[in-house]
């Protein structure tokens, strides 16, 4: 099993568990305490298991424009782009961020598909479809880089104190190169909780920085809280909402970005005006019609929806839950899933322990955005 650089610290303070082949802290005090620290104060997550891949060389941009669905040519200051990586069938190989670091690019994705994504990029680098020899260097930096995520309404004060950076001055996803005790730090205004916050990429021993963040009042938060906060914010996770099917039962039986509705976003990660792997399949799918859509569900009845539970409408199956938990903020069961029908405001049922239980399709986030999250009214 793979170990984080802070493995010793975590095992001394947390209940540990396995995720994507890594020893990970699940919780330190309790999910509820940690979740509330993120929503009301500030929490820190050691998410160094996340995948970082550098793409450099003269043709790095040309290569990324072909392998990623998003337009990654956007220059700084908005130097980070959310994207999906597709197979030829439009199925999602992975989803994540591409950082423009000036001399190179950095891909940041969840840990689950690290090996798969890396070999996929390597195979595309040699693909005939990219006519001619490309000057592209691909390096897996996952084991060198630690990633600490500082999340919550009080994250701003910490960035100010440690780095003299006011994160209110940064666009969402914008980065700054800074330092900690003479060591380089890449600060990115980003996160996965729905809250305001920033993330720190470092290659140094992360322990002094981690302990400093704790001294400044941040609560250590484990992977369980990372999941409850991301579901509450309505965010997708690779392996759940986005995935690649290994066995195909019929053509276009993939979960594509169109199923997830990514093409409808204001800043869509699908750039139709360029060529990219999987584009043809998406165009065909668009013509033929999209047979299922990503939906967000809030329980009316008691019960916690879980991955794999069936969604019905008036007794007829219409879909399946891909992620579910109990919202710490509202106390209600909440879920993300796919269904063939249904719009926000409509009533459906989720089959929990063989019984249909009432739920409503809602628009995320699952908390009141006036009271919680990055856009709360202060």
């Amino acid at each position, binding site marked *: 099993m793979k170990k984080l650089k802070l493995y010793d610290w975590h095992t001394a303070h947390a209940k540990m568990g396995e995720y994507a082949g890594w020893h990970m802290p699940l919780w330190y005090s309790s999910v509820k305490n940690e979740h509330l620290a993120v929503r009301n104060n500030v929490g820190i997550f050691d998410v160094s298991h996340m995948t970082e891949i550098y793409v450099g060389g003269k043709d790095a941009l040309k290569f990324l424009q072909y392998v990623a669905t998003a337009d990654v040519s956007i220059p700084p200051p908005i130097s980070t782009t959310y994207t999906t990586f597709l197979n030829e069938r439009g199925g999602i190989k992975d989803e994540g961020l591409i950082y423009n670091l000036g001399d190179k690019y950095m891909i940041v994705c969840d840990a689950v598909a690290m090996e798969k994504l890396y070999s996929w990029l390597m195979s595309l680098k040699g693909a005939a479809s990219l006519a001619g020899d490309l000057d592209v260097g691909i390096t897996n930096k996952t084991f060198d880089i630690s990633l600490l995520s500082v999340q919550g309404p009080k994250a701003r004060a910490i960035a100010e104190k440690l780095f003299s950076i006011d994160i209110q001055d940064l666009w969402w996803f914008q980065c700054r190169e800074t330092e900690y005790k003479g060591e380089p730090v890449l600060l990115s205004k980003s996160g996965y909780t729905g809250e305001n916050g920033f993330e720190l990429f470092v290659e140094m021993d992360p322990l002094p920085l981690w302990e400093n963040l704790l001294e400044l009042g941040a609560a250590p938060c484990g992977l369980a809280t990372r999941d409850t906060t991301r579901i509450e914010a309505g965010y997708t996770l690779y392996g759940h909402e986005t995935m690649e099917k290994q066995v195909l039962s019929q053509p276009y039986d993939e979960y594509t970005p169109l199923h997830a509705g990514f093409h409808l976003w204001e800043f869509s990660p699908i750039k139709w005006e360029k060529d990219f792997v999987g584009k043809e399949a998406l165009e065909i799918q668009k013509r033929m019609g999209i047979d299922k859509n990503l939906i967000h569900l809030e329980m009316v009845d008691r019960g*916690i929806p879980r991955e794999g539970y069936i969604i019905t409408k008036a007794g007829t199956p219409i879909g399946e839950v891909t992620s579910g938990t109990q919202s710490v903020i509202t106390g209600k069961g909440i879920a993300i899933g796919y269904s063939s029908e249904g719009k926000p405001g409509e009533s459906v049922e989720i089959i929990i322990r063989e019984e249909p239980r009432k739920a409503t399709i809602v628009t995320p986030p699952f908390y009141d955005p006036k009271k919680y999250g990055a856009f709360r009214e202060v």
Partner: protein
Amino acid sequence: MKYKTKEGLYYTKEHEWLNVEDGTGTVGLSHYAAEELGDIAYIELPKPGKVTQGGKLCEIESVKAVSDIYAPVSGLVVEVNNALTDSPELINQDSYAAWICKIDIEDKKEIEKLMSAQEYATYVESLT
């Protein structure tokens, strides 16, 4: 971490405890089980009726996952702790006070198959 056990109770390998008074057994979860589950978010209490030793009694959910609770003895479920429906976190607070149900024990000999508090403490130590 030192997990609490309680003298006089009987324990199963699945981490339920059983307190026997006359012919009635009160069932709950051990401190170890509560700590392993983490924040308990929901419990589907047992339905009144017959249960079998080692068979499924009911389900409990932490924020993260669903787990089964097993019947430590065979018999009839005669009472459930309805307070847990609204406050399942009582199990995290004190799993020896937060009982789940009472079973009218069918065959007292089944109790012999369970562990004493001391045996259970050794068993838990072997797991951690």
